[in-house]
């Protein structure tokens, strides 16, 4: 390891982000550009009798108005992952049209688009579009939607089922529960959330008739994936005639992975009108059209023997996928949720049975953590509840059940009951460090004292595991993924020794321009400022899969590492030629190749120059130094950790105040500790948001009652204490960097710790369960009911 890896180098991209000089999609202004405004349904479920666009078409500045009729013969946006019914029947996959013609299925469904000279003119004319609706009955809850007689979201897809699915050994699990000394059972509602990226989605479609060439500027986490889906499934465009550009993107949290209808809309319509079209979501539209997260109704049971060892875990979940299937919606409750139910424990039998369900709501897909928070939440809520019921300390109960340490090298990986094989883990170490950091024994005494004074302190645990670095293409392919999940990196050494890195990963806030540059500069022994990280443009980068699932460093960084090996190998050959030495006699250090035992050396920039000025190259040696790598990992990575929350609850008002939060995470090797700390802290803030504040709610008529920040509570700085973060290091055994990924850990770990802490605080008052978010009215009501 050199001197840059492991250093908290300040983020080089932050200068432009913090001075307003980044270039987001909405900042781009093209000549002759028009503006789109989409007419959306205000109803959750209604048949469209007619759409009258005459008045809108004749309004000032209007170029054209399009409706669902115009898109009848054009494809819908596809789902990227096929999960079939238990009996092998193909999953139900309705068309998700660019504009709907027959009926609207959720508030925000797109009915028409007005394209005009200015944004204001498009907005004004949109009010003149008259849609005649016939209202239909509405269902918004997954469990309700499965009941006989429930309203049908898609007329031809019975019972609102997308698919049913199971994983694990049902017989062994039923036996394990039946024979258990103690069974803990919880009904869990993991509520729906809105991702709330700070930059609304924004797209520009630009068709160039002269070249017969399309350019899409998009706020996407994965431009190549968008290009592939749009070209192959929706518009049937030749992929080599389409460029997708996604440069600066203001946050995604998963919501910008998916191919959205508006992307295809601006591209297709741009060709129709022969001019570029920009569409940028208003915040109100973001609330009802960005794919939401979570929304599971779960019954979970965990059996224990008389020594407090887990005997079995049984899970029944209804997962709400919304009105249409978003790109990865089907794999979230299945392969990123059911497969994580082993947690950190030696549970010998696990079974999950799950229904994926259509409802009259916005589509649900991955949101930071994606399936893993749902799995962690139910396991960790069961653990703290069981500990209280069996009168065992919650830390002790976990210790009795942890999988023993294994490094994946000297000890094999851990084969779970739910398909995955963990790479390496040391769960007890993270727990011990968290207990020590928080001062556990003293804290329990303090809690005791506080109770005597009528103050309600609570301590909550969460020991989470996640599957990241998604993942081996062969594995995901066997599970139904319609894409590979490798990553690419091209390194171009310029003649002057400067280095351009073209990564298939995508940064939308993560800091790749810093972390990747540290990795490259450290390996090549050159200054960081000599390295440029390029991402987000299909005309520049090799085919890449983008960023989600905490995969950038583990998969994208590993691809860079592979290309670095190739660069150094080629550089050594050139240096050997220049030094008239054998490659075997050269050492590479501090940016130069030295003939071992001599002072003869060639620096990186000298070798680079020679590579492009090959006046005396030997026969057979190619000029230039440029290498591409595609890296497909051998396994997922499995970061883990223990989080402990300390809260105080005001019993008079039900207010839960987070006093301390300790996060001990193990994300493998670390390149930039500051960025890792920041990712964990931001993730914890989002996890606390779900626990205490956030909830996306529909009323009985399917209206979205939390569609503004007046109603949807986001965590703010004053809701959070200073988060105490630290890391253990258990390297990943199967990738060249030994890294596991840190983007989602905070979100996955934090939520159950906070809820467990609040319940721990209120147990003396008889409260044993609380539903998220722990809003003051809800907590107050629980206290009232418990004491009644």
């Amino acid at each position, binding site marked *: 390891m050199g001197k840059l890896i492991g250093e908290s180098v300040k983020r080089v991209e932050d200068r432009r982000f913090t001075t307003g000089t980044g270039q987001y999609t909405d900042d781009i202004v093209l000549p002759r550009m028009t503006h789109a405004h989409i007419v959306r349904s205000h109803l959750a479920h209604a048949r469209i009798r007619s759409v009258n666009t005459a008045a809108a078409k004749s309004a000032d500045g209007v170029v054209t108005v399009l409706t669902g009729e115009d898109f009848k013969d054009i494809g819908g946006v596809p789902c990227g992952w096929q999960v079939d019914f238990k009996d092998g029947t193909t999953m139900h996959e309705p068309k998700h049209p660019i504009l709907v013609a027959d009926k609207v299925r959720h508030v925000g469904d797109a009915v028409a688009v007005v394209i005009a000279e200015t944004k204001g003119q498009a907005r004004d004319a949109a009010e003149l579009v008259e849609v005649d609706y016939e209202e239909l009955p509405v269902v918004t809850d997954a469990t309700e939607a499965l009941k006989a007689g429930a309203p049908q979201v898609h007329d031809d897809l019975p019972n609102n089922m997308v698919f049913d699915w199971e994983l694990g050994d049902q017989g062994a699990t039923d036996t394990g529960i039946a024979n258990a000394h103690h069974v803990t059972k919880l009904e869990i509602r993991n509520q729906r959330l809105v991702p709330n990226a700070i930059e609304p989605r924004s797209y520009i479609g630009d068709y160039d008739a002269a070249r017969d060439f399309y350019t899409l500027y998009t706020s996407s986490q994965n431009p190549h994936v968008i290009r592939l889906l749009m070209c192959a499934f929706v518009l049937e465009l030749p992929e080599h005639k389409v460029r997708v550009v996604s440069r600066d993107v203001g946050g995604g949290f998963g919501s910008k992975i998916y191919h959205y209808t508006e992307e295809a809309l601006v591209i297709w319509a741009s060709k129709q009108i022969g001019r570029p079209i920009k569409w940028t979501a208003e915040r109100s539209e973001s609330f009802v059209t960005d794919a939401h997260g979570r929304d599971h109704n779960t019954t979970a049971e965990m059996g224990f023997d008389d020594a407090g060892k887990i005997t079995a875990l049984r899970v029944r979940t209804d997962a709400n996928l919304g009105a249409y299937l978003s790109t990865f919606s089907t794999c979230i409750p299945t392969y990123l949720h059911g497969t994580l139910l082993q947690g950190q424990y030696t549970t010998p039998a696990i079974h999950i049975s799950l229904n994926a369900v259509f409802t009259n709501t916005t589509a649900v897909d991955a949101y930071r953590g994606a399936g893993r928070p749902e799995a962690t939440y139910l396991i960790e809520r069961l653990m703290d509840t069981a500990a209280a019921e069996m009168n065992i300390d919650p830390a002790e109960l976990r210790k009795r059940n942890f999988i023993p340490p294994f490094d994946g090298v000297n000890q094999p990986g851990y084969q779970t009951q739910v398909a995955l094989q963990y790479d390496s883990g040391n769960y007890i170490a993270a727990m011990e460090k968290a207990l020590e950091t928080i001062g556990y024994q003293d804290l329990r005494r303090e809690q005791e004292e506080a109770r005597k004074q009528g103050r309600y302190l609570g301590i909550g645990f969460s020991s989470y595991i996640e599957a990241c670095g998604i993942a081996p293409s062969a594995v995901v392919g066997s599970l139904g993924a319609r894409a590979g999940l490798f990553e690419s990196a091209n390194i171009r050494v310029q003649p002057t020794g400067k280095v351009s890195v073209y990564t298939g990963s995508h940064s939308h806030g993560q800091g790749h321009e810093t972390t990747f540059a540290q990795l490259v500069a450290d390996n090549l022994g050159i200054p960081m400022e000599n390295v440029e990280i390029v991402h987000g443009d299909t005309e520049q980068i090799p085919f890449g899969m983008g960023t989600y699932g905490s995969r950038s460093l583990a998969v994208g960084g590993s691809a860079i590492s592979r290309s670095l090996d190739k660069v150094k190998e080629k550089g050594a050959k050139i240096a050997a030629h220049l030094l008239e030495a054998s490659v075997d006699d050269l050492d590479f250090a501090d940016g130069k190749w030295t003939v071992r035992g001599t002072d003869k050396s060639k620096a990186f920039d000298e070798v680079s120059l020679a590579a492009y000025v090959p006046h005396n190259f030997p026969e057979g040696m190619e000029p230039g130094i440029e290498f591409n790598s595609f890296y497909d990992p051998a396994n997922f990575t499995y970061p883990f950790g223990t989080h402990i929350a300390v809260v105080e609850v005001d019993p008079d008002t039900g207010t839960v105040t987070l006093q301390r939060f300790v996060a001990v995470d193990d994300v493998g090797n670390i390149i930039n500790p500051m960025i890792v700390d920041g990712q964990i802290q931001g993730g914890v803030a989002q996890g606390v948001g779900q626990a205490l504040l956030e909830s996306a709610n529909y009323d009985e008529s399917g209206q979205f009652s939390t569609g503004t920040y007046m109603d949807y509570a986001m965590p703010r700085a004053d809701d959070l204490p200073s988060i105490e973060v630290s890391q253990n290091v258990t390297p990943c055994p199967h990738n060249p960097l030994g890294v596991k990924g840190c983007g989602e850990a905070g979100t996955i770990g934090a939520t159950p710790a906070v809820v467990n802490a609040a319940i721990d605080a209120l147990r003396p008052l008889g409260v044993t369960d609380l539903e998220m978010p722990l809003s003051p009215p809800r907590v107050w*009501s629980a206290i009232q009911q418990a004491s009644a």
Partner: protein
Amino acid sequence: MIPAAFEYYRASSVDEALALMQQHGEDAKVLAGGHSLVPAMKLRLATPEKLIDIGGISGLQGIQDRGDHIAIGALTTHWQLESSDLVQQKASALSQAAGAIGDVQVRNRGTIGGALAHADPAADYPGAILALNATLVIRGSGGERTVAASGFFTGLWETAVQDGELLTEIRIPTDAANANSCYLKFPQPASRYPYVGCAVAMTTSGGTCSDVRVGFSGVGESAFRDSGVENAMRGQAVSEASAKFAGDQATNGRSVLSDWSVSEEYRRAMAKVFAKRALLQVGR
């Protein structure tokens, strides 16, 4: 987030503003700091054809000590009230209510006159204005009149300001109770508007409450003085028990607002909790 088209007029004096209001009648809305009206316009919840901007009228700015009362111009910003030494000392409930509104950016633009004339049932000022026994100065084409705070809030989004009139000044008596006043806010987590806002102004003598005024914001259709709490507290030695008893009278006999995020039962219970806390804060 683009408002519908509107005509814009900027008044440089109260007389000019009144003339413009008379000229344009119901088509026109008055724009002060714009922190309620402009967001509503951006969402097209409000689509006024004309705006009369009074923000540039210099005579409506500022805080003056007039001996027996503090005079506050209608265009005085929340931040000016929050940070004024005079207001902090003589009418701390008002200063605290101002400091509880929105965020710094909002407090730098929003005005007390705009907020009071808007009469949002969830606004912070009204309860404080009631507890402080303020007088409001209203000007119309016929001249100037004054209204006591207790007669100002007439219903949901409604005040004593009539069509063609402007709220120009708020007068806060500099009495002993106002110097010993507070505003406690229990905010809804998303909007940070109050579940309950409770203002109390109290005079004490030897640990006994000799007089008290209690105003609530955000609880009912409009802000109100709660005589039940006042009567239960007046003449009592201030203690945990007496404050709890008095607080428990809060909202009795009154209707209370509820919505999807907060039930009537909860809001009523919180009014009692915060009345007690506010009474103890100024009574000790």
